[in-house]
């Protein structure tokens, strides 16, 4: 399935809903969208991976890039993910210790923005 990207605002958070496959071919589009959001002033970004059915190292690299950028800008970055196959990818790469991971958007938005530095 092709990559889909949709943005909405929840309070002070910008939620980017990602669907489909994030891989070496589609990840540049995800990177572009995240850069647009951050350059456009978004400081508290939540990426909802709920409808992602494939995520590879290139996609993970893009997410880490956004985390670093927002941290430098004094913002926050969190992920929403409750699918076991994706969670396993985060565990194996140790990125579960880098990203704040939440099971729902509500949980991510309700968490302290400083969680991005965890």
């Amino acid at each position, binding site marked *: 399935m092709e990559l889909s990207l949709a943005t909405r605002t929840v309070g002070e958070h910008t939620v980017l809903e990602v669907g489909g*496959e994030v*891989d*070496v*071919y589609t990840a540049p589009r995800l990177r572009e969208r995240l850069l647009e959001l951050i350059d456009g002033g978004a400081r508290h970004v939540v990426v909802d991976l709920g409808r992602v059915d*494939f995520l*590879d*190292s*290139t996609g*993970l*690299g893009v997410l*880490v*890039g956004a*985390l*670093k950028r927002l*941290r*430098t800008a004094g913002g926050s970055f969190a992920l929403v993910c409750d699918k076991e*196959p994706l969670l396993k*990818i985060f565990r*194996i*790469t*140790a*990125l579960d*210790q*880098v990203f704040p991971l939440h099971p729902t958007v509500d949980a991510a938005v309700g968490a302290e923005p400083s969680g991005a530095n965890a």
Partner: protein
Amino acid sequence: MATVRLSFSPAPVHVRTARLVGVAVARRAGVREDLLDEVRLAIGEACTRAVALHRQYGLPDPVLVEMSDGGSYAVRVVDRAPIEASIGLAALPPDELANESLTDEALTTGVGFALLAGFVEDLQVRPVDEGVGTEVRMVWPVGR
């Protein structure tokens, strides 16, 4: 033993095709259904690595993927890049992953290898037998 060979121009758009073919052949070979996600991810990572190397070295040569099912399901992904086969095999510790000084390329390479090593129990990365290049060899059991 049945063999399926796929070679593709080193462009990111074709990596998905390689994943789809790799999983289709795995299913046909009798790889357990619950392993297919891992097969898909691992073949994708190996092909992504090969495409990145070919682009890095400006090599137009195709990337070769060979799948065979002789008692187990074996996949070879062969690139033609002039590098030491073991480079990049070390997994990155968490405190380095988000380090500012780590480049995106280094991060993606490190994470890619972590995924390969984490998802494939029987994994070898070695120089090809003839000529220049690296072969990533992955084997999964078939459970009929």
